[in-house]
């Protein structure tokens, strides 16, 4: 591995995606191959530079149009990008994943396809994709999590079982704990919800959303001092944004602490997110 590649890798590890993108792009232009263009595209995607990402993936496809990895990258870009027409993006993502699956059936591609179907409001096809992912890889916790998400609307107890299965496979699966916590909170099982949010925070102590969910659960239980403490921890995180401050201020208002709420609002960061 060259020094430039190492630098690019390091930048990605440090979550400095802008720099990683520039380094990967330079490398790809110096010695073009589809994977380096893909790496550049993925870094651009993570940096939120959607057009650059698309350009990099197009270059990669030009070099190797039948590479399933490149095609999956294109699908992922269109599944996640917020710019443009959402329905058109999702259809493009679906086409890409279906094409990639013709070349190579992997559980990751099936899950991404399933999520695309879910976003396209086609739960039956989504379920089929997740079930096929489980056939390929019976202990794929993400497939269970996605099946749980599909079940949440019509059968919460089934959803709960599926989340439990995902957590059983990977006890440190933070996303499953968080979604399980939200489900339990909806069902009024606040102590159980609290447990899952706390597990999220054990796994990732800097998880902003888990802080907010936990604080909310504590507030609903009437444990206002604890809720306040968690809200304060949340807004002290580097990723804290105006919305988090507003949630905290609303909580303070609801417990008749208008002055404190105003102070929190005054301290809001000027740019959200």
């Amino acid at each position, binding site marked *: *591995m060259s020094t430039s590649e190492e630098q690019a890798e390091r930048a990605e590890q440090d979550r400095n995606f802008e720099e990683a993108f520039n380094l990967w792009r330079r490398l790809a232009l110096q010695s073009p*191959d589809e*994977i*380096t263009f893909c*790496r550049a595209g*993925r870094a651009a995607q*993570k940096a*939120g530079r959607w057009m650059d990402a698309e350009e990099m993936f197009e270059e990669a496809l030009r070099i190797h149009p039948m590479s399933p*990895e490149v095609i*999956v*990258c294109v699908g*992922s870009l269109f*599944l*996640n990008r*917020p710019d443009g027409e959402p329905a058109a993006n999702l259809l493009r993502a679906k086409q890409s994943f279906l094409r990639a699956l013709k070349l190579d059936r*992997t*559980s*990751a*591609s099936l*899950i*991404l396809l399933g*999520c695309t179907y879910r*976003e396209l409001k086609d739960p039956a096809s989504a379920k089929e994709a997740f079930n096929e992912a489980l056939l390929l890889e019976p202990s794929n916790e*993400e497939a269970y999590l996605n099946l749980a998400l599909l079940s949440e609307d019509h059968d919460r107890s089934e959803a709960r079982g599926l989340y439990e299965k995902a957590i059983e496979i990977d006890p440190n699966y933070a*996303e499953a704990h968080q*979604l399980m916590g*939200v489900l339990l*909170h909806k069902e*009024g099982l606040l*102590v159980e919800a609290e*447990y899952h949010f*706390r*597990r999220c*925070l*054990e796994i990732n*102590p800097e998880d902003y*959303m888990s802080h*907010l*969910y*936990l604080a*909310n659960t504590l507030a*609903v*239980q*009437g*444990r*206002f*001092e*604890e809720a306040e*403490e*968690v809200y304060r*921890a949340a807004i002290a995180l580097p990723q804290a944004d105006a*919305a988090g401050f*507003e*949630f905290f201020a*609303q*909580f303070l208002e*609801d*417990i*008749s602490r208008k002055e404190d709420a105003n102070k929190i609002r005054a301290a809001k960061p000027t740019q959200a*997110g």
Partner: protein
Amino acid sequence: MDGGSTWNFTYNALGHRVQWAYSGAADQHLFDPEGTWLGNAGSYSLVTFGGRYFALYLGGNTLFNHVNALNSASMRTLQSGAEAEDILFYPWGDVWAVQGSGGYNFANIPYRDVTTTTDITTARFSSPNFGRWFSPDPIGKKAVKLDDPQTWNMYAYVRNNPTTLTDPTGLQNDASPDKTCSETDASCSQGVVPSAESPSKVGPGQNLPQGTTSNAAVAPAAVTLVGTVEKAVPSILAELPLAIAGGAVVGAAAALITNLTDTLVENYEGSEQLSAIESVVAVENVQKLSLAESNETAGGGPGAKKDNTLQGKIDRLKGLGDYNKGQSKKGGYRVGTGKSEQAVDHALDKIKSLADVEKAAEE
């Protein structure tokens, strides 16, 4: 005590029992600055490993601790492997049978004073005979949750579930989001710790001295018992109107008070032991919820769910969900795709590495 002899105990500033004096003799016990019990000066010392007491040096021997699922020392063995002690406990910690001699260490509690049959933690003492603590939870009224009757009795040991849960520190929930509680099950919100999970510094029984808790600076319990339910319940009703904005008890708050009063009377009728703190907590919680309700009636906080339950007044789950969804779109990935997206990155890495190897081979 103990057949007529008198023992004098001396405590240090952190509440550790550092001297046990009796009949002209005295044992001195040592603690490190964090409060970990180190042993008896000139008699034995303890080996800690992984936050637990692992072994004991005594009279040229090393005794190894073997614990059961509750972290009670059920056996001790010598360095030779020979059994030195074998103990069976009743559910609440009383000793059923014992072979050998040494001491009793029940459910991760640092040590037992067999002189007074008391399990001792820095925060408070418990009685295996009575199956309860001698004093209420030191955290005070915070330990009581209105919607969980098991928390109303602050003398109860591990929610009266001693075959599953342990409480080696004697502390209940200290409200910190990152405490051991979070590793446990639902009962943890009341601060008790399911067996074999507690990382607290705890020790082998030894009839002897003090171990430590994870929070040595806890103040001693300061609860005054006053009166009976018959006195406490009217006090709730008397205080409420003063606390609620506008002087009115509204909607669900009033219903809550009625329910609470009924429950207290039903469960504690005739008891002289209901502590005033339970009543105070009840009043305070009702005050807070009622204030929230009054506030909501007057316009409420933005984004608050507009339902009529007390919980609903401050619940922002939906708002948080919508916000979370927006966050996923802004950066990162869709919900439920994180691991698959990682797999895509790993696949690219793998291909790149293989290409590098091939290139190197060609060169």
